[in-house]
């Protein structure tokens, strides 16, 4: 009985900040302006403009998730290799920027990457050619990788440090060289961290509108921007909610498929 009452604040929190807003999204998404039931808001996703935004979102988020994974895995391995004390300090350095406002960090990059921004000024000072990526898809991918990289590093690091030295030594003892030990033991054992890392990067990357707004300069429309505009610019909450629902289902399906693929893959990796 004591335990139940301890959970009460959490349940209130869940109800207030997750369930009720979600119910609103469902309500708006499935009704029209007069409040009558309709599926039009869901079907709206089929318009060519929205499909192409969704595909663009998909492309950029898959790309940035892949880049995050490629960067994060070796980083997490290096962190694991450091001594416990040093390791946790470096992990702290990683978490530190996450405490800074997401918007501020991205705006900072907007200034840094600007055609006449800090980076190009420094490059010009050394007589090097400037970079022109602001307001392109490349800048958006860069922003995604920059913002979401810690969410890939941390879960992978967390599973890696749980792999005991004796497990690695057992592999070596049984004749595996460094490369075989990695692919047959370390990598498969770190799969749960990779899966949660991918989830934690892919989902926010797919739905972001801030990064594409700031670093894409409004030239590159992602599905997040389309939905955002329905809420703010056109003030059509019904359509915005409907599209959100479709996106949610889309994410759910891809997560289920991913989890299933991962299970199959685990068996095949051995």
């Amino acid at each position: 009985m004591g335990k139940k009452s301890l959970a009460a604040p959490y349940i209130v929190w869940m109800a207030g900040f997750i369930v009720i807003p979600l119910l609103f999204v469902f309500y708006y998404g499935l009704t029209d302006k007069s409040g009558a039931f309709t599926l039009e808001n869901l079907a709206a996703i089929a318009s060519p403009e929205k499909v192409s935004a969704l595909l663009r979102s998909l492309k950029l988020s898959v790309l940035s998730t892949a880049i995050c994974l490629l960067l994060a895995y070796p980083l997490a391995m290096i962190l694991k290799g450091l001594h416990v004390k040093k390791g946790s300090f470096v992990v702290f350095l990683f978490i530190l920027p996450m405490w800074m406002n997401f918007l501020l960090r991205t705006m900072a990059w907007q200034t840094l990457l600007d055609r006449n921004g800090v980076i190009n000024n420094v490059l010009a000072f050394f007589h090097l050619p400037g970079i022109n990526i602001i307001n392109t898809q490349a800048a958006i991918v860069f922003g995604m990788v920059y913002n979401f990289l810690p969410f890939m590093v941390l879960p992978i690091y967390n599973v890696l440090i749980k792999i005991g030295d004796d497990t690695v030594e057992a592999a070596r003892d049984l004749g595996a060289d460094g490369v075989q030990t990695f692919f047959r033991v370390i990598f498969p054992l770190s799969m749960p961290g990779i899966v949660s890392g991918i989830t934690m990067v892919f989902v926010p990357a797919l739905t972001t509108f801030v990064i594409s707004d700031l670093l894409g300069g409004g030239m590159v429309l992602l599905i997040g921007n389309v939905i955002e505009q329905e809420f703010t610019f056109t003030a059509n909450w019904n359509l915005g909610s409907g599209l959100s629902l479709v996106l949610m289902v889309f994410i759910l399906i891809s997560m289920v498929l991913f989890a299933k693929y991962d299970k199959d893959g685990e068996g095949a990796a051995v």
Partner: protein
Amino acid sequence: MNAPLIRLDKVSKTFDGTMVLDELELSIKENEFMTLLGPSGCGKTTTLRIIGGFEKPDTGRVYFEGTDITDLAPNKRQLNTVFQKYALFSHMNIAENIAFGLKIKGKTKSYIHDKIKYALKLVNLDGYERRSVTSLSGGQQQRIAIARAIVNEPRVLLLDEPLGALDLKLRQDMQYELIRLKNELGITFIYVTHDQEEALTMSDTIVVMNQGYIQQMGTPEDIYNEPENAFVADFIGDSNIIDSLMIEDKLVEIFGVKFPCVDTGFGRNQPVDVVIRPEDVELHPEGEGRLPGVVSHIIFKGVHYEMEVMAGGFEWLVHSTVCHPVGAKVGIDVDPFNIQIMKKPESEDEEAVGVNG
């Protein structure tokens, strides 16, 4: 044939400025069951890890059949290790765990299949192929760890306190299993334990270590009956270690009473340590025996009574099948050949000096 299979030549190892092994010399013969025995922290695991290739000695060399393997990677050595915490691969089932080494070596599917069956039979876990690691008990995981090592047909099996995490009954069963395995496989075992009973039960040769030095090396009987110094006597089994005076050859004075003994060559009137095992102390009725005493404590242990007898100002530990109640007056005597005389260490250093060249 008599050349050592593995030889450690003046191996030293320091961790963070602390000397863990100091010029250790060790030879292991083919087909020997050798046990490294000593208190926790004395360097047993470090010695084993140096043999396995997981640790490099600071100085000194390791030889395998006369070849220097000091710098050889662990995966290139003809030996396998059974780790203290089993270290099974949790993402693989039992069959995959056992097959790991064989797959690396590129053995055929049918060979691997047969080997898995054979190894599971050997460790009494037939039919466990598809089970997951986490569904096994500690004792079963340990057997799988052994199976995973021996399918590779190593020349030497290294075992680091493999029974340390098991309860007493299971530990005793596994001790017999291991001896049986060793005899069936005919390979060399290097076994690490801090449990002297385990060492006495299983080994051909026991190496008693303390603080990075070898204190004594010999058969279990040698170590038990003729400990070379007070540390070994104290560590191996219960014993009475008494400050005494060697009057002359074959005569020692214990608490002012002369006892005939069999040792010679200690000089005249030299202080020595005397070791007498509790089961070698004879209790006679009052007035008989050499040294009078009073029983101060008694516990029934099943096979024998364990008594403490106050005599000569010393609490003697005595094992006997005859019960003498607390307060009983007794006379202590010891057979001459049950009195083990040891030279007193002259310095700290000598106490720890290796005895085997």
